[in-house]
Every structure is written in structure tokens, then in C-alpha cells.
């Protein structure tokens, strides 16, 4: 998924954000977050 690579590169300077993204990938929720309307406003 190129969008995941793009997101990883975009937060490459932030180890905590990198870990959060890789944890997301590990839980197979990448598509859930990427596709979820309003997901970014929910936190």
C-alpha cells in the first residue's frame, strides 16, 4: 500500500508516530483508518 509508505515517510522524523503506524499495520487496521471518513477527527 503506497499510501502507507507515504505516511511512514511523512512521519519519519517522529519515532512515536512511526511506531503508531507500524502497530496499525500489524493490526491490519491500515485500511480501516485510511478509508474511514471522519477517522482523523475522532481522536
Amino acid at each position, binding site marked *: *500500500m503506497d499510501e502507507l509508505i507515504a*505516511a511512514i515517510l511523512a512521519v519519519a522524523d517522529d519515532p512515536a508516530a*512511526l511506531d503508531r*503506524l507500524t502497530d*496499525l499495520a500489524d493490526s491490519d487496521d491500515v485500511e480501516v483508518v485510511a478509508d474511514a471518513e471522519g*477517522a*482523523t477527527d475522532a*481522536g
Partner: protein
Amino acid sequence: MTDVLLIAYLIALADGDIDTARYLADLAGDDAAVAALLEDEDYSESYTPDEHALLSEAARAGLTLTQVGTHPRTGKPIMRWVRQAASGGSTVKPDRATARGTATRLVRDGVETAAEAKLLADSLKQMSTADIDGLKREFQARTGGRLKQEKVDRLVAYARGRGSVVRTPAPAPPPVTPTTPTAASIEAAVMGEVSGLFKSPRSTGDLIKIADLRDAMAAKYGREAAGQNLDAALNRMDLAGVIRLVEIDDTSRATTDEISKAIRSSAGLTFYIRKGTQWTN
């Protein structure tokens, strides 16, 4: 302002980080500072030529003039007097070189698994800013405008702690509504239920209660199939010899519910079913 600074400036603005944006804007006028920030950090000591000129002879010992990077705007080599790290040797640490190679491969070939995503992230943590920027340019060249930016934005927001996993609830299964058997099929449905009841512990020897059959039909096919349609089907099956309807006179051992669900006629109370001579199940 260099591309790298501009991107950093825009990201800071997008994040609402005004202080960082101001700092980056101020930095734009200081090429030396920018170059120093972007240079590799594989050296235990690093001096600009002006700084080197101020050092004592003893302090200069072991320093070598080395290209530590390329100026982001002019493209000219950035030269520094540096002292190699204790491990010495290469100007780039082996683990960093490995990380850069791994990340380059993953960005070029794509990330297919969670393990590869983690490997990419771990590799990036070991790389310099300049290397990462180069990787970003390579990735942009590969993907062009094909990325779904809104997806990227959501993932970045999530990673920065501004989003959460919002699962769309799975659609509820359609309600199971009992299907009333047609007139043609009700006898087959009744046969199926009668056969099942004969095999159940509730069967009393060769007899099953019509009340039990009515309950079973109502649960599976609905109230309509358990009403007069059932009575008519039982009468037809009795006439055909498939089953025999059994009437009782003594209702003392029957419950009120069982009696209400039996078939009352002028002949009496039809309470049980037994197998007829034409029974084949």
C-alpha cells in the same frame, strides 16, 4: 528557501506549529546553519573551515577535510574538518548504510506486509534527514500523482495522535423471518417436524403431541403455518395414511397449554400423532 526547508515550513504550518514555522523561516537566511543541520552526523567532531582555523595544532590532530554532504540549494559539496567516530573507517556507519539500502528497496518495491512496514520504519529511524529527503523524492517520482492523498492524510493524522480507528459496524444480518410454507409444501414441512419429534426425547413411545408439533412449526415457519394450515395438513396426511391422529378422552394428564394446542372437533380432542401405515420416514 530550500525545498527541504520549504517542505518543513509547510508541514509545521499544517500542524499548527507556528514556533517551528517561524524558526524555519529565520533559518532560511542562514545557508551555513541549514547546511550544518542537513549534514550527516557520523563524526565525533565536525568543524567548519573557519572553526578549524581557530583550533590549536593539538586539536587539529586527526581531523580530515571531508565532504559531509551536498548543499541543498547550490549543489556544491559541503566540506568539514571531521574526526571519524571511534569505530572509524567508513564515513557512513555500516548499520546506517544497511538501513538506507533496506529503506530504498522497500520504498522502490513497495510494502506488502506489516513486517515490511515495521522494517521500513525501523530503517528510517537510523537514517539521516538528508537520506530520508532523498527517499521521499524517489518515492514521489515513482508514485507520481497516483497516491490517494486523503488516505495518506488520515494515516499521518492517526500516526500523530489525531485520529483513531473507527470501525464501520458490520452490516447486521437480515432478520430471519419465518417463511410460511405454501399449501403444496406444508405437508413436507410437517413431515420433517413430525419425524424430528419422533426422534426427540419428548416423544412418548409411538406418539407425539400435536402441541409439540405446533410449537415446532410456529418456531420454524411462523404462527400462520402452525394454525389452521397445520390442522388441514394433518387431516390430509391422516386420510393418506401417512400419520394417524389420535384422540383422547381423558385430559387429566394434559396441561392447559397442550389442550389448547390440540385439535378439537365434534369427535373429541385430537391430541397425539402416531405413524400411519403409509409412513415411510
